[in-house]
């Protein structure tokens, strides 16, 4: 059957390689960003976040970089594992008129080959 990733940008890597997933966000007023991982048949899961007053944040095997000048966000995954295979979304948050709503990018399908 058709998979969620069929129509999405796809990144294929070998197990053990480092992966870099990129995201261009739309609004220079966005003040908070989250990377989500979505496995097939599941809802998105939080990976790592970063506020707009930071350039870099590190977690366990993951690093998020934020370049506000060009409105670009990246997710780096070190020593990629087969379990990392999923669709990855970036979300930008911006307050407006009392609402604080995340807007999601299109997503990138990461395929990790053993």
């Amino acid at each position: 059957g058709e998979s969620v990733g069929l129509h999405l940008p796809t990144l294929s890597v070998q197990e053990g390689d480092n992966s870099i997933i990129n995201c261009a966000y739309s609004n220079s007023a966005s003040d908070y960003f989250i990377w989500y991982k979505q496995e097939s048949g599941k809802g998105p899961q939080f990976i790592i976040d970063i506020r707009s007053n930071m350039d870099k944040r590190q977690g366990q095997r993951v690093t998020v970089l934020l370049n506000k000048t060009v409105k670009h966000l990246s997710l780096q995954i070190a020593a990629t594992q087969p379990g990392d295979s999923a669709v990855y979304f970036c979300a930008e948050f911006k307050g407006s008129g009392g609402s604080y709503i995340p807007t999601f990018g299109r997503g990138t399908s990461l395929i990790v080959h053993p």
Partner: protein
Amino acid sequence: GAGVSQSPSNKVTEKGKDVELRCDPISGHTALYWYRQSLGQGLEFLIYFQGNSAPDKSGLPSDRFSAERTGGSVSTLTIQRTQQEDSAVYLCASSLTPGPGTEAFFGQGTRLTVV
């Protein structure tokens, strides 16, 4: 509960019928979001509830779509006179308070198929 719960997990309905999708957010979370995800696509914002404030309905695609949140907790998304293009996964998320540093937790989604 431990996480955001959505029901049903799958729903098949005939074109023209009405459907109701339910979301139980994490207890104490004041913000609740509904999104729609079509096959191979990103998440499309539908509606946002925050506390007792009027909901932000700016993402609802047509007047066939509506949502309620009762008692600041459970939410129901209703789609009237369903069309085949309504087929998608409907995701609900909640967060403790809206603002930087408070992540949105997602449910597993309801897969709606209109035949």
